[in-house]
């Protein structure tokens, strides 16, 4: 088996299953032992999917820096899958809110989107991720040309909106959103530094 085959047929499926574990775990718990979700199961599901959406977004954003810093070029092969899992967990978070929390009632849903700023920015992040997810197929990517990269660069904005969404939702204890903000700053900061270096090189060569 070549290295590429090993990745494709063994490592990737393993990462796929591992990425699904948080979902299998919480769905299993909800069906088999709902009392384990505590007194407010809707909130427990919302939090669970929201936190995993955050982690997958950070993991997906860590792929490129890790590839360069560690020299693991094959990491690039996981980037799309991890990004799609970030979208998947955001989608589960969104659906939990829409169906279980809001009971699919249109008026309160719209009111929340318009009047609750943390929900407004959460929705914006969700829509951007949705656009990225539906354009993630190779053929769509080829057809879109340069505009694909432009659209997919908004992942950085999604990262900021995601952390901001959580930050605004917290009442007083900012320890957890602060952790995500620090990680995100490091990941985006790394890219900014690379960009500055590249520009400097180009200027020097010109």
């Amino acid at each position, binding site marked *: 088996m070549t290295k590429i085959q090993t990745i494709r047929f063994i490592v990737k499926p393993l990462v796929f299953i591992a990425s699904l574990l948080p979902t299998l775990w919480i769905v299993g718990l909800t069906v088999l032992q709902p009392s384990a979700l505590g007194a407010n*199961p809707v909130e427990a599901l919302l939090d669970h999917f929201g936190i995993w959406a955050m982690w997958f977004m950070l993991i997906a954003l860590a792929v490129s820096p890790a590839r360069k810093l560690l020299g693991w070029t094959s990491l690039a092969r996981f980037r799309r899958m991890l990004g799609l899992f970030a979208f998947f967990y955001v989608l589960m978070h969104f659906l939990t809110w829409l169906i279980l929390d809001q009971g699919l009632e249109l008026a309160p849903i719209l009111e929340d989107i318009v009047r609750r700023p943390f929900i407004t920015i959460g929705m914006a992040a969700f829509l951007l991720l949705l656009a990225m997810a539906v354009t993630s197929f190779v053929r769509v990517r080829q057809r879109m040309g340069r505009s694909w990269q432009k659209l997919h660069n908004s992942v950085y904005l999604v990262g900021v909106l995601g952390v901001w969404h959580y930050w605004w939702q917290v009442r007083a*204890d900012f320890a957890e959103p602060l952790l995500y903000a620090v990680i995100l700053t490091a990941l985006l900061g790394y890219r900014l530094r690379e960009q500055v270096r590249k520009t400097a090189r180009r200027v020097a060569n010109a």
Partner: protein
Amino acid sequence: MLIRKPTDIRPSEITSEENYLNRRAFMQAGLIAGGSLVAPAALSAVVPKTRGAELDNVSTSPLSTDEAPNSYEDITTYNNFYEFGTSKADPFRNAQDFKTRPWTITVDGEAEKTGQFDFDDFMKPFDLEERIYRLRCVEAWSMVVPWVGISLAEVVKFFQPTSKARYVAFETLADPVQMPGVRRRILDWPYREGLTIEEATNELSLLAVGIYGKVIPNQNGAPIRLVVPWKYGFKSIKSIVRISFTEKQPPTSWNMSAPQEYGFYANVNPEVSHPRWSQARERRIGAGLFADKLPTQMFNGYGEQVAHLYKGLDLRRNY
């Protein structure tokens, strides 16, 4: 210019406006109270030191709702008590070894009787009552809790506030050794809350020492906590160590933390929206994963008892 004549009337001798307006009911209450002196007054609130012990001599109250109370487990494992941690499960986990004896309550400010009182002595003059109340959290969830407690109106009367006393302020213990949340400056400790004296002497206001007929668990605010069911839960301050009668409106913790979000009054009001939570509906804890939210009622459904307190007050501004 207003020239006052010197007077020898002490502030405490002046009948408050509320008592004046309610003078008939007040005199009637006096007659009843007088009557109870003739009969042997067996009721003296005793709270056992043992955790979870049954409370004796608990009378029922017509103020109780007939809605089904939440399970003991839901009430005692889903708590906002930031001194013991900021997640809902933290207080249950972190308050197990909390010491509620000896416990001292300081009463100070504008009252005839002030001082430091041992909790068990503090309780003695009062009667235990069960009150089953709705509890509405500002986070848009609600429960029904069978509290056991003493009437705050009776407590206020006992300490004889002077006519200068317009507010009652409360403080929670802030012990960094026992309370891990206090080691971090999440809020400006100690936790503080307050009521107007009219709110404090409303018949609904309760100082709770029990749940489901048993000594109140630590995570719910042992040994003694406030319960004001027409206000958002954060007004119902837990583990009280100080009660102060004040002339000025006392500072309150969530209002200090985010004044644009949490007002002094914090009355349950489905019409006044909050930047984080729509207050129009509420999730009833224990109703299950697919239950619809319930419409939130003005004053949490206690308008009959409290609406008159806010006549002429713009509740949109005074949220």
